[in-house]
């Protein structure tokens, strides 16, 4: 069999597996309507849950690319019904572990040595999973290290899988490719970057050096001499997992201080460095004493000064009372297009105003209490409302800048983490922002 044929059959296998999920979703719908016909009522929520599990099961059977695709679709909450988002959020915990011989093989390929020839001790069992690999604990000369090892061939299969799976996934999830094309491109770029450990090491070293002066934020030291295309070695950090800390009985003062550190860390990256850690997920942080440790720089995003100015012009308080300024800001970001009818303009403007009122709320008062869960659930509700909004779906055209995806994801993640911490913190407007 030629190489071309073997690749094709490999793709066909995957397509068959996905088509299977599509069929199962279809059967669930039949059951749903059957039940509706008999009883006159049906539980739509339950149907969605069931479909989400089916799709998720198929995606995780395929591992690799489809799994990451699932994650990328769950990034933008408004693209996905909550049931899907919930299932997909599980994705990063369920990748299969690498066997110890494969870890040894990877070391021999990368360094020409066994891990136990490099370190005094190397745990054969992974301490925990990373999104596309796993972390082992090692020691050398009394110092403890966290050694992150990547699955072999993950970048290649990611590339081929995304191409095959994308149209089918869009079909299953009921999305229109044209409207999300730029978004897909952006997410694909970021996902492929996550497989580039050399870039991750550079970002990690750069960002941790640039942020080291911030109070209550700590970074592990990175070790390029034990790092390569497939391995990243950093100091082992002791501490409490972020979600354990947040859900535990920590005193309010400590919650506020950790929350403030988190906010300041992101404010500094976004507004001063314009390069930021774009994956504020609980698994990427530890709490150690009165400090927050940042562990993973796989996903970082750079924005330019022009985009930053346009994006954060939306924080101008005058926008709420001055329609002309709001329209100008929306046009500058291509949220409003010249071809829009007056009715469409009005609809989009109302929507934008509503989102803005909610998302900019923490900035309005200079301090904010994330302890009130109503704020986060209002954000979820808004996302859900937009998703169900038929008028909005009917408005065509690719809108907004793809750069906003990861910025939105970052703010969404940041707000979620702060809500989980129930932190009450200072939330000033970024300094140096000039509103004309």
């Amino acid at each position: 069999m030629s190489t071309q044929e073997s690749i094709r059959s490999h793709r066909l296998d995957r397509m068959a597996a996905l088509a299977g999920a599509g069929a199962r979703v279809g059967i669930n719908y039949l059951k749903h309507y059957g039940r509706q016909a008999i009883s006159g009522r049906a539980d739509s929520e339950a149907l969605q849950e069931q479909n989400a599990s089916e799709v998720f099961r198929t995606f995780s059977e395929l591992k690799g690319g489809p799994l990451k695709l699932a994650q990328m679709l769950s990034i933008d909450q408004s693209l996905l019904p909550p049931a899907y988002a919930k299932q997909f959020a599980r994705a990063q915990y369920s990748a299969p572990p690498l066997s110890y011989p494969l870890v040894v093989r990877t070391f021999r390929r990368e360094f020409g040595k066994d891990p136990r020839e490099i370190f005094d001790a190397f745990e054969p069992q992974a301490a925990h999973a990373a999104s596309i690999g796993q972390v082992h604990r090692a020691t050398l000369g009394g110092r403890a290290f966290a050694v992150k090892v990547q699955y072999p061939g993950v970048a290649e299969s990611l590339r081929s899988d995304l191409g095959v799976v994308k149209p089918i996934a869009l079909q299953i999830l009921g999305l229109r490719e044209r409207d999300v094309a730029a978004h897909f491109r952006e997410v694909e770029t970021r996902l492929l970057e996550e497989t580039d450990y050399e870039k991750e090491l550079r970002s990690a070293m750069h960002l941790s050096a640039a942020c080291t002066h911030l109070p209550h934020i700590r970074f592990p030291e990175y070790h390029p001499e034990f790092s390569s295309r497939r391995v990243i070695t950093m100091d082992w950090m002791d501490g409490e997992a972020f979600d354990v800390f947040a859900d535990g009985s920590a005193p309010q003062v400590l919650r506020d201080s950790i929350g403030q550190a988190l906010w300041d860390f992101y404010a500094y990256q976004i507004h001063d460095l314009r390069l930021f850690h774009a994956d504020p997920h609980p698994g990427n942080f530890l709490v150690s004493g009165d400090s927050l440790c940042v562990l993973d720089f796989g996903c970082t995003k750079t924005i330019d000064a022009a985009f930053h100015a346009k994006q954060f012009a939306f924080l101008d308080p005058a926008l709420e009372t001055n329609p002309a300024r709001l329209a100008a800001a929306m046009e500058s970001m291509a949220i409003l297009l010249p071809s829009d009818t007056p009715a469409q303009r009005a609809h989009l403007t109302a929507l934008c105003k509503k989102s803005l009122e909610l998302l900019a709320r923490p900035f309005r008062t200079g301090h904010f209490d994330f302890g009130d869960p109503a704020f986060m659930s209002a954000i979820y509700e808004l996302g859900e409302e937009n998703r169900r909004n038929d008028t909005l779906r009917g408005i065509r055209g690719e809108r907004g800048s793809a750069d906003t995806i990861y910025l939105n994801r970052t703010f969404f993640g940041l707000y979620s983490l702060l809500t989980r911490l129930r932190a009450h913190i200072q939330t000033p407007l970024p300094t140096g922002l000039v509103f004309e």
Partner: protein
Amino acid sequence: MENRTRILEAYTARLREHGTPPHTVLAFCKSLNLSERDFFHEFASLDSVESALWGDWISGLTTRLENGAEWKEFSARHRYLTFLFAFTESSLDWRSLMLTRFSHLAPVGSPPFLKAFEEHFKVFASDIISHGISTGEVAHRGPLQTLYPAVLYIHFRAVISFLLKDESQRFERTDAFIEKTVAFAFDVIRTQAIDSAFDLARFLAPSAWGKMS
């Protein structure tokens, strides 16, 4: 240099340069300046020279692994994985030779020039299976389990086929292929899946024969 080594080295050099084995023992001996008597004292045929060539590779590899410090602690699955990864690593020195001699072969079938290669592997594989039975990783299955080394040999040959077609950087896809197929294989031999398949085959086979006759 003793004759066995001379013959093996000359044979390998010829395979590497010409891509084909020598045509006759006579011609081969002439090029080596060796008498036929001396040749047949070491090997019965040209095929057995090549058989020794590949067989020595596998037995050298398994001996090295079995004497390694960590080998005793490894489970059967980890031993088999360690062997396959050591094999792919070592195959970098043999890749062009393997491409000339293996790429046209189907994973099943036993050409004479791979006799010792196959035998050494199967002895090694049955050691792994016995170890697996003693640790409970492999289910006891009476006479059926004598087939396991043969099944692992087919798997090993499939790994070689995959490796020779692999175009990925540093053959990483082969590593993933090994990891995934071995995980699957050991999942199957740990459970009753084989028993059920065998039972189904026994049930279907007579009726299939009945319909044909």
